[in-house]
């Protein structure tokens, strides 16, 4: 029987299987196991979590393949890894290693300030960040199979993720209410591929799963993003920078599943210890704003 690898259904379908779940950043096998046991649907294997990338400064690159390999060997849930924006070779290396999903991520220092990866040319699926519908549609045009808000990674501050989720969803609603003869001008204004916008208008929704990312620090933050229409949540620095990662991870998973059960979220939030220390977005230097990376 003939089979086709890396098709759109297979790549987008993989993201659909992650819905309602939490994807956690981990830097070693031990953290990966804690994440899996807590009920994470996938882990993101990294050398440093975003808040440490911020602290370290300098150029942030793809993780040491040994770390990625260690994480892949430690868990049976899918393993994601980050490649720099536009870094064809980092992405190909991760694909060759058998990573399940690649995040073309603004958390790392971009390798190309003009062009993103042509993700449709890969067998492995990609997730990309977006702040608005134009950015979402451009990434879809390049072949992203999953989207996430950019938020402002490593800050523990949810405000940017909220802004981006509301923005994308408001623009989708606006698009859906438009007449067909208005779509081309909207494409021009958003800098978005016309066909993708037309498809979104016809289906009434984005054609791929859209997760929240970039600033989720508490169970209530995760539930808030679900309330705003996220299909699931990425938690970066939040878990393993908290006092009790195990308890924290479990609480975030449950708050994501039962995001409208406020009594439960209250109980889950009791005595969780100190969450990661947050950063005020307005105090960040322009050059430290990761969300400005990519276009």
């Amino acid at each position, binding site marked *: 029987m003939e089979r086709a690898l890396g098709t759109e259904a297979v790549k987008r379908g993989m993201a659909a299987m992650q819905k*309602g779940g939490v994807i956690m950043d981990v830097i070693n096998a031990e953290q990966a196991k804690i994440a899996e046991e807590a009920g994470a649907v996938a882990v993101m294997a990294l050398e440093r979590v975003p808040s440490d990338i911020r602290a370290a400064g300098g150029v942030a690159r793809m993780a040491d393949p040994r770390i990625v390999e260690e994480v892949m060997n430690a868990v049976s849930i899918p393993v994601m890894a980050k490649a720099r924006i536009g870094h064809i070779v980092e992405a190909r290396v991760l694909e060759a290693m058998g990573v399940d999903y690649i995040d073309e991520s603004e958390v790392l220092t971009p390798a190309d300030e003009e062009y993103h990866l042509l993700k449709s040319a890969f067998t492995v699926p990609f997730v990309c960040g977006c702040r608005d519908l134009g950015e979402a549609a451009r990434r879809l045009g390049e072949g992203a199979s999953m989207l996430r808000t950019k938020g402002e990674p490593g800050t523990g501050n949810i405000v940017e993720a909220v802004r981006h989720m509301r923005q994308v969803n408001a623009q989708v609603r606006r698009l859906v209410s438009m007449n067909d003869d208005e779509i081309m001008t909207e494409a021009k204004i958003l800098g978005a591929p016309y066909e993708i916008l037309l498809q979104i208008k016809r289906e009434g929704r984005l054609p791929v799963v859209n997760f929240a990312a970039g600033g989720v620090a508490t169970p209530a933050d995760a539930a808030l993003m679900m309330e705003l229409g996220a299909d699931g949540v990425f938690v970066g620095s939040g878990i393993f920078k908290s006092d009790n990662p195990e308890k924290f991870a479990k609480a975030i998973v449950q708050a994501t599943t039962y995001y409208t059960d406020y009594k439960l979220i209250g109980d889950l939030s009791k005595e969780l210890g100190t969450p990661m220390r947050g950063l005020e977005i307005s105090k960040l230097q322009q050059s430290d704003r990761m969300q400005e990376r990519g276009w």
Partner: protein
Amino acid sequence: MLTIGVLGLQGAVSEHIKQIEAAGFKGVLVKKAEQLEEIDGLIIPGGESTAIRNLMNLYGFIDPVKDFSSKKKPIFGTCAGMVLVADKLNGSDDAHLKLMDINVTRNAFGRQVESFETDLPVKGLAEPFPAVFIRAPYAESAGPQVEVLATYRDKIVAAKQDHILVSAFHPELTNDTRFLELFLEMVKESAKTTGAEV
């Protein structure tokens, strides 16, 4: 109208509900075990089986789903759902619901880059089914009570045992409702014996 519940803890839930409703049945998102009382058939969707199992434990779903099954109410497990209903899991002594006499291997075809689509001949369907396999399991072996509905490279990827149906692939990710209809027929049959309103 018959009601089909989709276990809504994690995974491809809305895709199933959409197809169920398109077929003229009522689709319900099942997030609490009490809801099992109100449904005529249950779908355990694709997702991450470890994450779903975890939440099933935490929120007391294991025994209620077993009770649901003991009343011969139909259950359909896709992908992670197939892992969850299996009697045996390869490489683990900790099987989950143990509702079907199959020995299942998780992620059996490899990692995501090995995920694939193929036109799969299925017993009971006139034309091959567009099967989407995503980090899919397969059953290495099945007991005598199990009717094998499809194999891929000699591995069992769809099967039925009495009121339990499983597929390693994802009918809910396609526009083809024929496989789901096999399940809906099972629900109709079972409803006749319980006297539920069709």
